[in-house]
């Protein structure tokens, strides 16, 4: 009987640990706002006009919407989704920036070739 009690003790501790992990995480409201700002920055940065960037922007928006439904219910999962949404939005912004920079470089190089061709 004594041995059985000792063996069952770790199993009894598992639910207690789970409650401590999930329940103690505060709602990630600040992170959510930051993610919204990242999405807005990507939109303003031209992500909707660049196919690759648009895809990651959509993923960010989806993750953000999903996280909203989980806040106060599963804050840990919500925080993870928000973190993913943030990097998706940041990547969308960077891809749009890359595309625009490459377009500008191509345009400038084209202009240069025209001028040099006319010389």
């Amino acid at each position, binding site marked *: 009987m004594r041995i059985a009690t000792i063996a069952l003790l770790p199993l009894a501790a598992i639910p207690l640990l789970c409650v401590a992990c999930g329940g103690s995480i505060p709602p990630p409201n600040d992170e959510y706002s930051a993610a919204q700002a990242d999405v807005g920055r990507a939109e303003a940065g031209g992500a909707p006009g660049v196919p690759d960037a648009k895809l990651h922007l959509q993923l960010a928006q989806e993750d953000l919407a999903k996280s909203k439904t989980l806040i106060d219910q599963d804050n840990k999962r919500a925080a*993870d989704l928000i973190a993913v949404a943030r*990097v998706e939005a*940041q990547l969308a912004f*960077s891809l749009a920036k890359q595309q625009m920079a*490459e377009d500008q470089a191509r345009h*400038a190089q084209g202009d240069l070739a025209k001028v040099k061709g006319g*010389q």
Partner: protein
Amino acid sequence: MRTTTILALLGGVLLSVAQGCGGDIPPPKALVDARTDYAKAKGGVALQVDPTDVHEADLALQRAEAAWRDSQDVKDEHTIDLAIIAQRKAQIAMAEAAASKAQQEAQQAKADLEAAMASQLQATRGELGKTQQNLQQTQSQLQQTAAMNEEQKKKLADLEAKLKDARDTIAKIAAVKDDDRGMVITLQGEVLFKTGKWDLKPAAMAKLDQIADALRGKEQPMVVFGYTDNVGAIDMNMDLSQKRAQSVRDYLVTKGIPSDLITSQGKGPAEPVAGNDSIEGRAQNRRVEIVVKPKKS
């Protein structure tokens, strides 16, 4: 027996957990992708352009690896999320590096473009300057030509006026006419010479003085022709007419007519202006003609 069974079960559970912690379980695809993209970012230009982005990707990957070590569950959402974050960070590092490289290329192309355009502008300005210079030279030449034309016109007008004055002056002392040879001044032989002689009479010299005064400075070629009537031998008449023409020519030279502009020629009885069958006719044929040729322009 019951205690033994419980211990055996517990041992089985612990063995299973121990096996789960082993390295044989393949990691989730998201983590594999994250490792691949991080390797790309670390091996590409991203590390040179901005090491911070690559470092963030490295830290994120380390967190994902730690989560995987802890969970050893390919379906663990937290591990997968951390792997996705690590992959995205690596992709961000590469995109930022590519954007930076493209921006540098664009700036370089713009700088080259400005330099090329400046060079073209300078060349165009140079050509324009040359064209303007040529234009100014042409205008200057045109003005000079116009001035020269004007001067020549004025000279011609002066010359014509002087010629008219000369003609009017000469017309008072000799017969003057124009034919296809030019202006012809005719002096009768009796006025100039004694019969059979070619020395000029003093009265002739006075007339020739006036003619020389009128013709001096005209710079027009002249020919003095001597004529006789048909009385006497032709050879004698030819010789006499030549000598008389020469006398007139030489006298005019002494009076300032340039010697290279005036010549003489005896024609004898040729080209009579009247019949030789009367005294009056023969008198008219004995003559000296000074032909002033038009000036060659």
